């Protein structure tokens, strides 16, 4: 199965974000039902619906194209993607009014207020999440699809 390697790499990359998006939608709709202030769902979903899956697919294609030269493990390669998506997602969220930056905390989705210390820990654990997701889930799908 050596044909269309990059197409299969793209599909392997978009697998997890495609599964995670309905979970995010469910959480948002449940939040809308329980929270007094409504969520701007249509603005929140722009980033995870459009940018994230495409970036994961393209990033996996890049790994397939460069792995023989860089020898970079898939987990580390995926963790680097988060460092690129973090400012992009935050910038888009700020532009769309999804987050509000305060002096001591950040308010996400008009409902979740997190101090900057928690945000810093969250960034570290998001790196861990990306590392594990890429190493085990994307790696597994890559093997199933015959990419790696």
């Amino acid at each position, binding site marked *: 199965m050596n044909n269309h390697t990059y197409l299969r790499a793209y599909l392997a990359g978009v697998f997890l974000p495609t599964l*995670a998006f309905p*979970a995010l939608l469910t*959480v948002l709709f449940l939040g809308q039902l329980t929270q007094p202030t409504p969520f701007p769902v249509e603005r929140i979903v722009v980033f995870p619906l459009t940018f994230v899956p495409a970036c994961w697919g393209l990033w996996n294609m890049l790994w397939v194209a460069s792995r023989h030269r860089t020898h970079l493990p898939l987990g580390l390669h995926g963790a680097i993607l988060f460092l690129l998506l973090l400012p992009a997602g935050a910038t888009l969220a700020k532009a769309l009014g999804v987050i509000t930056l305060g002096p001591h905390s950040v308010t*996400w989705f008009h409902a979740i207020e*997190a101090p900057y210390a928690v945000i810093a820990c969250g960034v570290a654990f998001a790196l861990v999440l990306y590392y594990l997701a890429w190493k085990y889930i994307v790696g597994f799908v890559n093997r199933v699809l015959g990419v790696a």
Partner: protein
Amino acid sequence: MNAQEEDRIKQLLKQTLPPVESNAEPERDLWPAVLRRLDGDVAQRKAVPWFDWALLGGLAVFAVSFPATIPVFLYYL
């Protein structure tokens, strides 16, 4: 192709290709080595290093401690 050319080709092929022995078998049984290789591959795939388990545990503890951050994690997935 006439008979003379066919004979010539047969002769050339016999010269080029080594004769196959009638009872050609490997010197040792290769099947155990195949089984070891398969078992090794499976074990290598199943083995998750302790460091990754620790990272997963830390991630779970953080998610339980700050459940409000889960939608933010999903936002980036």
